[in-house]
């Protein structure tokens, strides 16, 4: 496939370096640094060699303990794919040979299972991963020796190969942790510049955020990306206060006796809220139900052309829990999934969170207004674009769908309506939104006011179009909606091999419930990178979309 070579070279040039690591706070993959960081939370834990080792290499690590280390790609289920590489070359062995015995040994020592770093699933777009692996291997090999003395006790019966493998894993984790620290610092400098600058560098933040945002900075960065928080630092606090007050007064009004309740809308929201993220404890609390009802109802009342549409209840939740996490101590950010917000927030603070969610949801939905208006033309258009795109990038699959009478409308409405949220675990969605929100185009909502735009906005526009940033290297801006179609296409063709063997019923059933439960951040990042590649390859073909 011609795509392969061009895609890998594209990756090399792309500033959206697909394996550039952000923190992956939500990853649950059993990696070494992750477990180390977790154990730091517990003061009762005694120091082990490995902890000393890691903390020595990253002095600032300890106060960053909530930030779990990046996940390794792959999962146990994929290990067997690599068995046949055993004993081929030394280099291959370290990174591809992970058989069950190896895992068993590690289990014996209560050590996390090392994970391979080549993506979680089989895909035709694997080459970039391999390239990256090679690079990582080279750098790790060169610096490996210096860490030999600091490896935790391994039983002597473990072969040298295994020991070496483990050393490399530790080294890799340390490197990832270091790069995470660097990223956190980078974001910190960008959102809170120390010098006398009055503007945050939004294009730079956008570029950086595309590859993932560290958890500690995510709330602020999301608000900046989506255009809720102004880039003018001096105005930020003032704007927040004003917007939060406006929300509070608006809500007070619509829930007062002076407002005649829209019974249909209220009823729909009331029956949908208990069905929102039913598997996450956070969304079972009454306080959360009430907050979400207020946000959604207020939004619906203020946007009569759309009103509340099922699925918007999903779209508000990433904002909700990310903004809640701002109020949790760094070591407890993950508790957002399980704590009643009223145990750590005052009613006033919760109202502020609600307000932030409301405004950010409004900004997000501005980008996709036509998804939810009468007839849902935006969704139908997106579904059509997806089918056109798949016809181009995977003609065989498209023909197979045709011959099986599978229509895109039958499976991709939900993909569009909920921006693929239903297809992934929440933590993956949040990582995905780092990229999505950096793809939001503030210009779409202000393009008509272009001439009247204030200095800061035109400055933003100018620097954005002239910078070499990912979304501005082209002569035209991309939009979230457009990028999403490419993500959907990348998601679909990922299963191409399987789907080609299925009939109508199997295809629809598979796509209604795709096997993404075990997806790691690296899988999401691979998907986003693939989408980016498709987008850069097909951008001319899709310019008529807007």
């Amino acid at each position: 496939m011609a795509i392969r070579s061009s895609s890998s070279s594209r990756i090399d040039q792309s500033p959206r370096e697909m394996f550039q690591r952000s923190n992956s706070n939500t990853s649950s993959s059993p990696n070494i640094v992750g477990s180390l960081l977790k154990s730091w939370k517990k003061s009762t834990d005694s120091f082990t060699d490995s902890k000393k080792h890691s903390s020595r290499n990253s002095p600032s690590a300890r106060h960053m303990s909530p930030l779990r280390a990046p996940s390794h790609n792959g999962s146990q289920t994929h290990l067997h794919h690599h068995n046949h590489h055993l004993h081929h070359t030394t280099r291959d062995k370290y990174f591809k040979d992970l058989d069950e015995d190896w895992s068993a040994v590690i289990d014996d020592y209560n050590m996390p299972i090392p994970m391979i770093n080549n993506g979680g699933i089989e895909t035709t777009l694997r080459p970039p991963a391999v390239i990256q692996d090679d690079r990582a291997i080279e750098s790790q090999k060169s610096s490996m020796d210096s860490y030999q003395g600091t490896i935790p006790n391994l039983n002597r019966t473990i072969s040298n190969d295994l020991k070496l493998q483990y050393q490399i894993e530790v080294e890799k984790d340390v490197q990832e942790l270091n790069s995470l620290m660097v990223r956190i610092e980078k974001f910190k400098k960008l959102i809170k510049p120390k010098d006398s600058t009055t503007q945050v560098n939004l294009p730079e933040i956008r570029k950086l955020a595309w590859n993932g945002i560290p958890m500690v900075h995510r709330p602020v960065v999301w608000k900046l990306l989506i255009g809720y928080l102004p880039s003018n630092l001096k105005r930020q606090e003032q704007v927040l206060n004003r917007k939060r007050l406006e929300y509070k007064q608006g809500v007070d009004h619509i829930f007062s006796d002076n407002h005649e309740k829209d019974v249909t809308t209220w009823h729909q929201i009331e029956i949908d809220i208990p069905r929102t993220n039913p598997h996450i404890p956070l969304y079972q609390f009454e306080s959360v139900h009430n907050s979400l009802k207020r946000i959604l109802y207020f939004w619906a009342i203020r946007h009569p052309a759309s009103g509340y549409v099922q699925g918007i209840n999903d779209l508000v939740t990433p904002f909700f829990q990310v903004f809640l996490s701002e109020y949790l101590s760094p070591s407890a950010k993950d508790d957002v999934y399980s704590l009643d917000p009223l145990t750590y927030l005052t009613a006033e603070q919760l109202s502020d969170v609600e307000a932030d969610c409301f405004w950010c949801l409004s900004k997000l939905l501005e980008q996709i207004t036509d998804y939810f208006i009468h007839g849902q033309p935006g969704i139908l258009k997106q579904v059509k674009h997806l089918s056109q795109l798949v016809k181009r990038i995977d003609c065989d699959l498209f023909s197979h769908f045709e011959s099986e009478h599978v229509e895109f409308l039958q499976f991709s409405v939900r993909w569009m309506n909920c921006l693929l949220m239903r297809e992934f675990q929440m933590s993956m969605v949040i990582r995905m939104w780092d990229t999505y929100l950096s793809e939001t185009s503030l210009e779409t909502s202000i393009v008509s006011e272009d001439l009247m735009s204030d200095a800061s906005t035109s400055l933003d526009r100018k620097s954005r179009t002239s910078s070499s940033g990912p979304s501005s290297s082209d002569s035209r801006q991309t939009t979230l909606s457009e990028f999403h179609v490419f993500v959907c296409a990348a998601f679909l063709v990922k299963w191409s091999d399987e789907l080609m063997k299925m009939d109508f019923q199997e295809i629809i059933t598979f796509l209604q419930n795709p096997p993404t439960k075990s997806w790691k951040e690296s899988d999401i990042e691979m998907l986003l990178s693939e989408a980016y590649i498709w987008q850069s390859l097909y951008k001319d073909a899709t310019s008529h979309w807007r």
Partner: protein
Amino acid sequence: MQGEDYGYDYDFLFKIVLIGDSGVGKSNLLSRFTANEFNLDSKTTIGVEFATRTIEVEGKKIKAQIWDTAGQERYRAITTAYYRAAVGALIVYDITKSSSYENCNHWLAELKQNADENVAVGLIGNKSDLDHKRAVPTDEARNYAQENQLLFTETSALNADNVDEAFRALITAIYQMISKNQLDLNDASGNNANAPKGPTISLTPAPNEKHKKSTNNCC
């Protein structure tokens, strides 16, 4: 249940739509019938969802391909597209919510407007386990069903009461209708060429799976 399977072998394929207000339990009726599952914490249906089950009626294996639709009004543009090639429909209401029963008129009208005129329709009063909260009397609904020539059953997806029976009655009715009339809905649906269709919406006997695979053409 004996003698039935969930496999590919079938004599007929019937496409059926599940419609009704949001929150009446359509998705759970479907999962109860096709997988014998009930989800207390299921998410809202966006667009349409799909499941199948094959049952035996009068010695024939009939595969029911059931499309579960989103109940909210806004999704009508997308969901009505699925009415067109359907040979059967179940209109579902919640016996504890009179508004969901009152809306059945509206659903029936919409079905008549978008579906084939021969479509077989059943009315289902779901959540019969919540009898203590009943808002819709059984007799009233039964009369309404009779007036409009609809099959009628009260079901509980939660405890599985009457769910199989309701689907089975509809499928049997469709089968009897076609074996009596030898309708060829292929022709009928040919008039609606724009309608999205599953692989075999027709009431004509389905080809066997081998044939289907080898020709890549289902009918």
